[in-house]
């Protein structure tokens, strides 16, 4: 096709002119189609599709934009310590973190929601993000919460709930009709909330158990993979949250108790991994696995240092649950990919903003 000699174009008479125009138009159409295809891939022609950006917009509508803070789990404090592996995990996963030995850990305790100045209350969702620094340069990041199961099966359900529970500017409360409509159309959420409400919250962060919620895969040295979920079980004894505590004058009393407690002695959790059996759902975080599944203690997490977000490395870390070392992999849970995408969007937005002082100030941590 490209074999015409340069001279042949000049020799041809007038008919070429009109065909040249047609060819030019054709080239224009081809270029437009390529550009259109590119924009189509970028979602320009699907304004109603749920994207990371629209999801984070919903968080911002719910709690406002607080410069420099996470769009969810905004109020928090940085911690650090180490994980001492007992080697029991090496049977299930070739990840370096499960060989016997110690790896440094950076973490962050938080409350769910986008308000960085929210008043501490035991019934709010508690989060713990952790970053394990493996000796070979790999990392394992996990973002856990204290709920036994997650209330939403899909990103869409989570988003629809954010929209339905949006506060009405007139009443200051969510529209009960929208809330009822959401509940009626999401039986999985209602079942999960039943399980969540049957678990009494503990008195503080230090005696809270944190759960992976989503299922993951452990891959052993032979390449065999098994589904797992994990829990951090506190060595600090359980005490139920008292109703009187909610009426505390100190709006950060739970964080203050955490600071006092970690400064008295290091806090510890066992890393318990639950081994899933064939048929256990890995794509539905609203459902607990049946009782009696094998649970293996892989080692002990020790947190012995606490810092305000203003000085802690944790503020500027994205606890993306898909940063996994070789030997661990995501399951087919649709929430995992969405969490990774949305965390990245939240991180990108806050990264470029001026950093506002944290509710838990460096002075607060030192006193």
């Amino acid at each position: 096709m490209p074999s015409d000699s340069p001279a042949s174009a000049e020799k041809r008479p007038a008919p070429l002119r009109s065909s040249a125009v047609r060819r030019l138009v054709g080239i224009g159409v081809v270029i437009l189609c390529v550009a259109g295809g590119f924009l189509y891939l970028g979602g320009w022609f699907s304004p109603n599709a749920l994207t990371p950006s629209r999801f984070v917009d919903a968080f911002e509508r719910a709690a406002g934009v607080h410069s420099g803070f996470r769009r969810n789990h905004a109020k928090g404090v940085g911690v650090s310590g180490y994980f001492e592996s007992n080697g029991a995990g090496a049977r299930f996963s070739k990840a370096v973190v499960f060989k016997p030995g110690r790896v440094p850990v950076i973490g962050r305790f938080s409350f769910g929601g986008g308000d960085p100045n929210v008043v501490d209350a035991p019934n709010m969702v508690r989060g713990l993000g952790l970053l394990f620094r493996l000796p070979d340069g790999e990392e394992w990041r996990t973002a856990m919460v204290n709920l036994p199961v997650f209330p939403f099966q899909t990103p869409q359900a989570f988003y629809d709930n954010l929209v339905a529970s949006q506060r009405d500017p007139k009443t200051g409360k969510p529209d009960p009709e929208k809330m009822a409509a959401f509940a009626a159309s999401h039986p999985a959420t209602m079942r999960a909330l039943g399980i969540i409400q049957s678990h009494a919250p503990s008195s503080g962060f230090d005696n809270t158990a944190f759960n992976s919620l989503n299922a993951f895969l452990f891959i052993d040295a032979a390449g065999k993979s098994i589904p797992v979920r994990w829990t951090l079980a506190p060595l600090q004894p359980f005490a139920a949250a008292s109703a009187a505590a909610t009426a505390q004058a100190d709006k950060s009393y739970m964080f203050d108790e955490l600071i006092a407690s970690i400064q008295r002695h290091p806090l510890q959790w066992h890393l318990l991994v639950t081994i899933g059996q064939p048929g256990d759902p890995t794509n539905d975080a609203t459902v607990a696995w049946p009782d009696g599944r094998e649970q293996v203690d892989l080692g002990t997490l020790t947190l012995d240092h606490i810092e305000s977000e203003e000085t802690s490395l944790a503020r500027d870390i994205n606890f993306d649950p898909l940063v996994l070392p070789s030997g661990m992999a995501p399951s087919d849970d649709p929430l995992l990919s969405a969490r990774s995408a949305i965390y990245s969007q939240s991180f990108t937005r806050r990264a470029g903003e001026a950093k506002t002082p944290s509710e838990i100030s460096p002075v607060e941590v030192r006193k």
Partner: protein
Amino acid sequence: MNMASQPSQFTVLMRVLHWLMAAMVLTMLGIGVAMVASLGDYRCLVSIHRPLGITILILVVIRFVNRQFSTLPPFPATMSSQERFVAHASEILLYTLLFVLPLVGWGMLSAARFPIVLYGPLHLPPILPHSVMLFAFLRKTHTVVAYLLFLAFLAHFGAVLFHTLVVRDALFSRMAPWRVRAR
């Protein structure tokens, strides 16, 4: 006449690198624009995006070095000196964008202190210090450079189509994936 020393086509290695990179870069641009708008496919797209970006960075360096040591076919006689200047400038622009884009990607993930996993435990070291402000700047830069690269690709593609279909010269045959005999 020194026609023997003037090749009619780019060398086989140059043509292989051109078409291989064309496929990779177009795939990359599509993945990049799709992944930032995607929830369900994000994980899969990101896990291709990072290693493919680094592969392109390595290939563009190899390609640039190889170009310095290769004899290039001349421009067709149909191209004016201005057109040759634009063609040459656009080539420099494409090389620059192809080099800068993956480098900014590597730098921005370094500034975010985000591991860049290539395969299994194999990962890249950070090339910049941990700074979220720097990340925010480089993240924007990455998008801007990607759109510039896409526009530069459209201009390049349009110019080649114009020469092949309207001017009907032998410009395309210089880079054709198949062998074209000198006439």
